[in-house]
């Protein structure tokens, strides 16, 4: 049985950080949750939306069309009196920020918790940003769990806090929390039974300076509560010369650093779980007599600057002169530099070792040098690529061909998600811009409207199917309204694939797997007045001609390249067996010169260097067969799964 379903307080179970956050919400009696998927946050709602979980705890879970809608929906449930959760990745808070700025002013009724999962090191993002700056901008209380267990505990607490303050509360997670797993103790489940009602006296109004001043009052109240929070703690000797002030992942990294250097008895750690507003008194009280402070946190020196600013009022009176170390001093730095990339135990070990003048080597110099030689001589870089069987690879090949055949210098404006790889080798370097959801179409509204300046290059905008609903629609409407001319290519793989195959409005299923009204992309586009064509990208020639022909049209048009994500498809059916007929394969001869491995670049197609022909890695291959279609020599053969079974 899934551990999140267990009602066994005290039982220790293994959970992913995101599951722990979900469990925290369940333990708090949360009844409504909404999100737009985005790594590393997706599994929060992904877990809560599981049919067994949603049914067992009776909450509503949804994948909303985008983050601002998700937050508004959650706020709506809160206005009705229910406890509501909204989760997003760091990009999402930018989308949600307009509503967010006003909902902190209007306040809320049921506990409203916003979880933002940042991605230090950009493991699964095309940006790297520290969303904590929003908490300060918003005047909103900010919690930063440091362990998997705390993720659950603090999420539960955040609902109470939100109701006490009558305003949304923000939790900041990071990849190393959200996507880490650890053991934790299950708590009791709050079987809260509230009947939502929008009362006659309920008003949720954001009214300029008036509500702003109310907000400041709430923030001071939050500070008072934080002063007493058990999640803030000091460990270490009293009278330590050096104190590490840390939050989030920095907590365990700092513990490990001191243990590794044998400095546990000499250096203190002040762990902050409430990083906005700061618990001023708590911090000052623990820095009495301290001469050195090292700040350890993910991405920006957010806490570092806020604490420094706080301490400026106390140094010389209650506090001694303190030397500060951290990102500002350059002591906390990744291989990219300070305030870039993610932190790890080695970064903290090095920072402490440098400050304390301790010699520390992770590996002996001789060993480290051998290791580095091995890396450079025996490992090849492993770039991200479209998966074997991915329809996008074919779609990008289609675009590459159509652009060349059009021959007027046309180019593609890109999107993020899986399509982000369209800017790399796997997508033949086709995408020429990479910003945010839907921005390809938006940017095309500009570049596609420069004809009067004698701009004559065709413009193509790429978007995913989920992106179409998330952010491309306003741009497409704008294109119709303002007469921008471009060709939209919707790469419709019938899944939000990058983040884990969540459904979206075009699929006909909701987050909990129940049938839902299907909003067809082609219907929407036709309704907007676009000429629409639909092709299967695996039927490459037809798709190339369709795109080419659409690019010749005088008006904007839409091409939907529709083929289900290879990973989704391979889960559903037995795969066909693909193999190379070595006798037919031309290899390096004038002809294709290794089209399948050198150019098309499907990870399942391997070049047999000894025998000079291509072959198929049957473990990686999904059996999509597009290589058989494309092989100029017809040397790739397909045996259908049905035939194989006979």
């Amino acid at each position: 049985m899934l551990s999140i379903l267990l009602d066994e307080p005290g039982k220790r179970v293994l959970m992913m950080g995101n599951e722990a956050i979900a469990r925290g919400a369940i333990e708090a009696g949360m009844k409504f949750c909404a999100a737009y998927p985005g790594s590393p946050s997706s599994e929060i709602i992904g877990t809560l939306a599981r049919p067994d979980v949603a049914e067992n705890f009776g909450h509503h879970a949804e994948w909303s069309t985008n983050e601002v809608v998700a937050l508004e929906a959650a706020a709506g449930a809160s206005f009705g009196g229910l406890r509501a959760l909204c989760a997003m990745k760091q990009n999402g808070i930018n989308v949600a920020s307009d509503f967010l700025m006003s909902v902190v002013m209007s306040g809320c009724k049921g506990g409203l918790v916003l979880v933002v999962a940042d991605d230090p090191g950009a493991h699964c993002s095309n940006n790297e940003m520290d969303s904590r700056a929003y908490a300060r901008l918003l005047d909103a209380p900010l919690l930063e769990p440091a362990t998997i267990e705390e993720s659950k505990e603090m999420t539960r607490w955040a609902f109470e806090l939100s109701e006490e303050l009558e305003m949304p509360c923000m939790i900041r997670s990071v990849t190393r929390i959200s996507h880490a797993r650890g053991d934790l103790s299950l708590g009791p489940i709050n079987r809260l039974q509230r009947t939502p009602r929008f009362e006659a006296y309920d008003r949720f109004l954001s009214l300029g300076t008036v509500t702003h001043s109310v907000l400041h009052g709430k923030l001071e109240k939050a500070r008072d509560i934080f002063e007493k929070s058990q999640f803030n703690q000091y460990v270490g000797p009293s009278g330590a010369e050096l104190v590490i002030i840390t939050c989030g992942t920095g907590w365990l990294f700092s513990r490990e650093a001191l243990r590794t250097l044998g400095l546990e008895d000499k250096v203190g750690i002040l762990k902050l779980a409430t990083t906005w507003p700061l618990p001023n008194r708590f911090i000052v009280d623990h820095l009495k007599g301290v001469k050195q402070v090292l700040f350890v946190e993910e991405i920006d020196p957010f806490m570092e600057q806020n604490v420094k600013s706080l301490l400026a009022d106390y140094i010389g009176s209650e506090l001694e002169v303190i030397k500060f170390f951290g990102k500002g001093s350059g002591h906390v730095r990744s291989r990219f530099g300070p305030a870039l990339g993610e932190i790890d135990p080695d970064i903290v070990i090095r920072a402490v070792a440098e400050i304390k003048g301790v010699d520390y080597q992770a590996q002996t110099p001789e060993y480290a040098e051998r290791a580095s030689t091995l890396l450079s001589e025996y490992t090849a870089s492993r770039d991200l690529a479209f998966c074997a069987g991915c329809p996008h690879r074919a779609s990008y090949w289609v675009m590459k061909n159509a652009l060349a055949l059009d021959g007027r210098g046309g180019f593609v404006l890109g999107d993020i998600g899986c399509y982000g790889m369209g800017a790399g080798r796997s997508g033949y370097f086709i995408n020429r811009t990479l910003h945010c959801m839907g921005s390809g179409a938006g940017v095309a509204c500009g570049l596609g409207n420069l004809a009067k300046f004698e701009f004559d290059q065709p413009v193509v905008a790429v978007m995913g199917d989920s992106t179409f609903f998330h952010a491309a629609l306003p741009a497409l409407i704008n294109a119709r309204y303002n007469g921008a001319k471009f060709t939209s290519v919707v790469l419709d793989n019938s899944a939000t694939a990058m983040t884990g195959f969540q459904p979206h409005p075009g699929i006909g299923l909701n987050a909990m797997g129940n049938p839902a009204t299907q909003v067809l992309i082609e219907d929407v586009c036709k309704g907007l007045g676009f000429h629409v064509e639909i092709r299967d990208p695996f039927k490459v020639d037809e798709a190339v001609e369709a795109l080419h022909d659409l690019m010749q049209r005088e008006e904007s048009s839409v091409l939907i390249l529709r083929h289900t994500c290879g990973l989704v498809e391979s889960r559903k059916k037995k795969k066909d067996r693909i193999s190379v007929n070595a006798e037919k394969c031309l290899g390096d001869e004038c002809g294709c010169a290794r089209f399948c491995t050198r150019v098309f670049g499907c990870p399942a197609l391997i070049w047999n260097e000894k025998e000079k022909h291509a072959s198929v890695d049957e473990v990686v291959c999904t059996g999509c067969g597009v290589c058989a279609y494309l092989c100029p020599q017809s040397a790739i053969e397909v045996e259908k799964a049905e035939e194989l079974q006979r």
Partner: protein
Amino acid sequence: MNKGPDDLQSEVQQANLCAGCGMCVGLCPYIKEMDEKVAIVERCGRSDGRCYRFCPRTSTDIGALDEMVFGARRGDAVLGSYRTLTAAKAANAATHSAGQYGGVVSALIIHALKKGVVEAALLTRYSERKQVLPRPTVARNRKEVLACSGSKYTAAPTLSALQDILKTGEKLAVVGRPCQVTAIRKMQLYDDRPELKNIKLVIGLFCLWALDYRRYAAHLSGQVNVSRIRKIDIPKNDDFIVYTNGGEARVPINKIKEFIRPSCQVCFDVTAELADISIGSTEWQDDWNTVLVRSEAGEKLFADALKAKAVTTKKFPGEREAILREAVGAKKRRVLKELSRRGSESAPLLYLKLDDSQRALFLEGGNK
């Protein structure tokens, strides 16, 4: 010196010299064609390639090609090697009326198929999906041949389909413009694949220029209902006339000439000089063709067709021959001038390779 696709890209594609013959398209998975535009989609990385070698707009050694096809260099600088010059038309009324002028191309192909001289013919017919767009097609009987009748006026890159048809092993006739005939002959000169022997007959079409399909089709679609086009013609340098089921539309010939492919401005060959038989209009009698029988194979087929009464002929009048020579000669001199202007030290006449004596002969425009 070996050259490859990168050179094809810089010397032909980017220099706007692509004639749209289709030869390279059929050879390579990275060279593609859409609406008569040829593009190199991806670099194959080779420094030598058939795509470059067979292209009619890369170094073309007229003397060597003459020797391969006719066994000797040409004596006639204007019309090239030929055995007879005659006026002809298809004897069969239906064949004749389907054709653009005299219907001789259709008649000869039908005859060759009937007699088993060839089993298939690579021709062009209009696309069913795109207006006035010729696509390569293979005809194996009279009905299929007649479906391909009529002049197309654009590049019609039929050779894109040649390699695939050669693989069938059928004996083959190819009908093409002068650049396409040159491409086939270059392939035969430089390639020794056994299947090339399947090409039994190359019929060349007279050609002064071909239109850029995209611009031409866009213009026509603004002028007439292109879905109802029956026939297109330029009667005796008159306006360009589009006959449709709902009447006819005239486009001034000067307007149409704006759409000529740039490559045609440097084309040296009007009468398909390397074909077995070359066929064009007469410019004086609409229902007859001018026929230049050039090679031994061409002579054999033509004689046989005459004997079988597939075609009828009449004498080509001396004064018409003089007019033909003047027109072709003038174009050649114009092109030679343009080629020397654009040539470099290593390629004085751009793609054309002539020795000094040949060059002098051409410039004089001398006869036999």
